[in-house]
């Protein structure tokens, strides 16, 4: 077989030859061939639904390819199940976190192959080993903690430890950074650098361009299931990469539409509960208010409390100046508040339902005729939203479970944009969304503000907050540590307030 990547055969650790994967109605991968050099950090990029995760899942034995083959360490391999891949030395940190919620961190890291001494689990050794690995990542995490009590970012770290624990020669990370904040990201980059110095190969998937330039040696671009190009990262332009990925130029990455900032729409005073302490802020009609901070700083908890998803022990809320008290999420929705939650799988979607049914879920009255669900209206609504957010799917009837991660996120957005709210709260709305689609979403957010809605946006992506918001509140340890207006925005200032 020809080797068109110019890498000497002896240095190729992974050689993918003509992989094709067909799902009903979708060709997720179309004759993909590419080589990965041993000991390099190889980035894989592409739009939502381009086939990145599918490729990874074939490599790791979750799916079987429709046709094609791949060679690992110079040998053609047959990977039928994830364990086969792990035995070969190929580990994956999947995009969707898969941990056993009821077990501890240590147990999850060594799941399936607990450390044993004469047939019994050697708890001491297992904990020690787990603790060493977590410390290796420079992270504070109690390895005895039950996983269900961890934040998403912490769970992600456990996933990484788990993959590392296999003594892998090739580690594939599918959007590991999507859930991490700047600090944690630095740790991740440290880890990756350390891995590379040990000669371990890393395949790195991310939608954040700056990361590609920071960590990767070479990059492969996928578009619509096809391999477009593989090239060294050195000497290539960001915009070049983006247009290869999207197939067209995208202008401004952070479009900012002009909006008229009006009266205060929502005012929160002294919000206090178990997780947050004396949080006060206000957001005006037409304004986009950002919430910055580290994971666990109480941003999600704050908006959940506003939305009555968590209870408040103290504090009051005012909408358009009138005091309100919500007894349930329904109350909040009735007062025209929308909350797009951070965890699409657990909180945003009913995975087993179709796109259509997820989109119409919040206000079924929208799709009712005479009090009964109308299939036609529901279809119209969902097609409209699918088009508005360019969700890549063969049909609105598709189960959301089968969509790519980014497209699932778009369904969550669609679901909430389908109801016309006055106050829109978005918790990490662009997590896992590609550059092109991100710009679309910023434009949508801008349009919401233009229509006079008050927008609150939580994000761990600082350039995004700086690009999109009118004002930013920074949270630290459950309280607001400061806020600033657009003209004073800077990464340093925000970080300063976030870490004290």
């Amino acid at each position, binding site marked *: 077989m020809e080797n068109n990547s110019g890498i000497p055969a002896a240095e190729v650790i992974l050689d993918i030859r003509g992989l094709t994967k067909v799902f009903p109605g979708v060709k997720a991968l179309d004759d993909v061939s590419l080589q990965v050099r041993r000991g390099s950090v190889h980035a894989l990029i592409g739009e939502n639904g381009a086939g990145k995760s599918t490729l990874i899942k074939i490599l790791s034995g979750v799916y079987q390819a429709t046709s094609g083959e791949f060679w690992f360490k110079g040998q053609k391999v047959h990977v039928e199940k994830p364990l086969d891949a792990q035995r070969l030395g190929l580990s994956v940190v999947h995009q969707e976190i898969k941990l056993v919620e009821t077990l501890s961190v240590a147990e999850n890291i060594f799941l399936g192959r607990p450390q044993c001494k004469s047939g019994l689990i050697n708890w001491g050794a297992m904990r020690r080993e787990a603790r060493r690995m977590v410390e290796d990542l420079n992270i504070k995490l109690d390895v005895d903690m039950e996983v269900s009590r961890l934040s998403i970012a912490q769970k992600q770290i456990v996933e990484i430890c788990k993959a590392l624990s296999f003594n892998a020669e090739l580690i594939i990370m599918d959007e590991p950074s999507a859930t991490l904040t700047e600090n944690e990201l630095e740790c991740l980059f440290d880890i990756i650098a350390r891995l590379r110095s040990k000669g371990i190969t890393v395949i790195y998937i991310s939608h954040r361009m700056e990361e590609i330039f920071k960590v990767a040696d070479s990059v492969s671009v996928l578009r619509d299931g096809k391999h477009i190009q593989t090239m060294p990262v050195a000497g290539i332009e960001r915009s070049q990469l983006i247009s290869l990925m999207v197939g067209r130029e995208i202008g401004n990455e952070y479009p900012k539409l002009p909006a008229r900032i009006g009266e205060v729409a929502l005012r929160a005073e002294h919000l206090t509960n178990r997780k947050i302490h004396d949080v006060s802020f206000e957001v005006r009609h037409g304004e986009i208010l950002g919430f910055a901070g580290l994971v666990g700083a109480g941003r999600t908890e704050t908006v959940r409390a506003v939305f009555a998803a968590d209870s408040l022990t103290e504090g009051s809320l005012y909408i358009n100046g009138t005091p309100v008290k919500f007894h349930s999420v*329904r109350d909040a929705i009735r007062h025209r508040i929308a909350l797009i939650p951070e965890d699409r799988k657990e909180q945003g*979607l009913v995975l*087993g*339902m179709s796109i259509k049914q997820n989109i119409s879920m919040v206000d079924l009255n929208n799709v009712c005729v005479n009090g009964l669900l109308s299939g036609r209206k529901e279809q119209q609504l969902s097609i409209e939203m*699918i088009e508005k957010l360019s969700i890549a799917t063969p*049909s609105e009837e598709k189960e959301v479970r089968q969509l790519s991660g980014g497209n699932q996120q778009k369904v969550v957005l669609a679901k909430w944009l389908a109801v016309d709210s006055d106050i829109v709260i978005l918790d990490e709305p662009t997590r896992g969304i590609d550059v092109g689609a991100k710009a679309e979403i910023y434009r949508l957010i801008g349009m919401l503000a233009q229509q006079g809605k008050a927008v609150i946006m939580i994000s761990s992506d600082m350039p995004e907050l700086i690009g999109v918001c009118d004002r930013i509140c920074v949270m630290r340890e459950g309280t607001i540590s400061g806020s600033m207006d657009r003209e004073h925005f800077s990464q340093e200032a925000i970080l300063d307030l976030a870490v004290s």
Partner: protein
Amino acid sequence: MVQNKARSGHLTLLHFFSDYVIIVPILLLIVIWTIIAPNFLTYNNFMNVLRQVSMVAILAAGQYFMICTGYIDFALGALVGLCGIIFAKAMVDWSLAPGLAAVVALMVGLLCELVSGTLVTNFQLPAFVATLGMMYIGRGLCYVITNSYPISKIPASVAWIGRGYIANAIPWPVAIMIGVYVIVTFVSKKTKFGRFVYATGGNREAAHLSGINVNLITKCSFLLGGLFSTLTAIILVSRLNSGQPSAGTGYEFQAVIACVMGGVSLAGGKGKAPGVILGAIFVGLLTNGMTLINVDSNWQQVVQGVVLILAITFDVYKQRRQASTR
């Protein structure tokens, strides 16, 4: 981007079959029994099968809502017994008119399920525990109330429900079963409540954050369990012409079999009501054929157990495949 829309059209037939896979084993059974059981393929026998399955099928409508919401109700069979006893006793001992007696029985059924539903939602008890407890309470009360003797001398005016025919051709229980499923199918497909049930069973947290009152929906599912238990109980009393304290024993499991065979996922949030009737018919055909060829009734139980395990294995396998495509 709704890519290639035309495709959805020609997939409908395929969808129909993947939704109602159960049709295949049903046809298979019919062929097999026709060959080996001499009296199988007659109109009378067919109506007989339908009448036999109708009660479990009606009860299965209650189980269907429960399973869709994400639970299994073990108390339904016991409630069939209890509501039947109350219905019979109200007519025989308290001389209430049948209509009124039915209302009293319904109240008891709803009350029991309201208790289970409240325990599961407001007190966050596992449904397994709450409904199992209710099963023992219900069955125990059957024997306490009747002193373990059946209640006989049921007024002749209720005989039609269990034993009558419409136009001398279609047994009343069968007609009621069909009516129930027309309504249940309509409710689950066309009403907001139906959609809420699926959403709640599919992902409680996401449903809650979408403003769905998941506790209320759960309680309503329990109440529907009470409603269908009572309906089943009334038909059964009329059919047996007595209130038997042991009536409905094991029905809850047969209802689960019917649901699972009919493609309702035990994981919740998924299932089509018409499938449940088909599931019940499958079980009915299986038993009927075995009876016709004189299979011992104890062995029939063994076969039912095997079928249940196979059906659930199939369901689990399907879910596993879906989970791996996450």
